């Protein structure tokens, strides 16, 4: 398991995400309210550049919302730019299907740098 420095933490402010190259792999680094997540930049659907998509919230509608549409989870969902499938950044799980999931890389902030473990 090799650890790679992908940049100073100041380059990844809260609410932002960007794709970095680690060896031959493209990885999306997400700062969700100070919590870092790293996902592969390849969508399990049809191999689109998942992490180049928009980070946003999503809709909810259930008995909890009184069957009214509500906007929830702002900043926690990335949408693949190709066919718009939504993924939970914290788990890598697609919201619409238990069968679509991306792995997560270990990411940490140490001494002012963001480090990703690939292996």
């Amino acid at each position: 398991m090799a650890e790679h420095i992908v940049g100073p933490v100041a380059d990844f402010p809260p609410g932002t995400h960007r794709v970095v190259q680690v060896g031959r792999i493209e990885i999306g680094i997400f700062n969700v309210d100070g919590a870092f997540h790293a996902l592969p930049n390849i969508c399990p659907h049809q191999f689109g550049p998942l992490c180049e998509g928009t980070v946003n919230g999503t809709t909810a509608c259930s008995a909890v919302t009184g069957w009214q549409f509500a906007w929830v989870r702002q900043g926690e969902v990335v949408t693949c730019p190709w066919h718009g499938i939504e993924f939970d950044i914290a788990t890598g799980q697609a919201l619409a299907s238990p069968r679509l999931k991306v792995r997560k890389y270990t990411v940490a902030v140490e001494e002012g740098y963001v480090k990703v473990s690939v292996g």
Partner: protein
Amino acid sequence: MHLPVCLHSVTIVSPAFPCQLDQFENHFARQVLSHSFAMMANLTSIIHSGVPARFPELRVVFTEAGIAWVPYMMWRMDKYFHEYRRMVPFLEQRPSDYIRERMWFATQPIEEPDEPKDLVATIDLIGGPERILFASDWPHHDFDNPRAIMKLPMPREAKRKIMGENALRLFGIPAPAEKIAVGA
């Protein structure tokens, strides 16, 4: 009462639902499209408006459109659910999951592929013999003889379900004391 809702495609072969059937030259085309398109529209309507989420006890039976259109709609709705989940966030699972748990499909007019085993495979795609109800539609022109099911290469237990046991359970009818004779 806990009775299921049964959908019959159209009261008559409607000229306007769900597509403009008058555009076709003859009844061959109208017959091919009317029932199956109507059932696809009904199923889509039920899913897109969140009926299974709001009424988890509700069971729905689709009749008179055969069954082979169902896997197509399961896959098609799942595909667009993946893309458009935000528009239907009340759905807690994929459309195909709701279909396999809450919906039943009547056989008539049963599809007749060259290889009967292909129809058995189709039934499995829909969730297995538990989802299928025999219907004859007698005395319409395209009625099915019960033996249409009997000749399918399926276990006897599966045929018993399709020929009656599923319906007894679904409609809350006590099973007759006498065993229903079903040839293998």
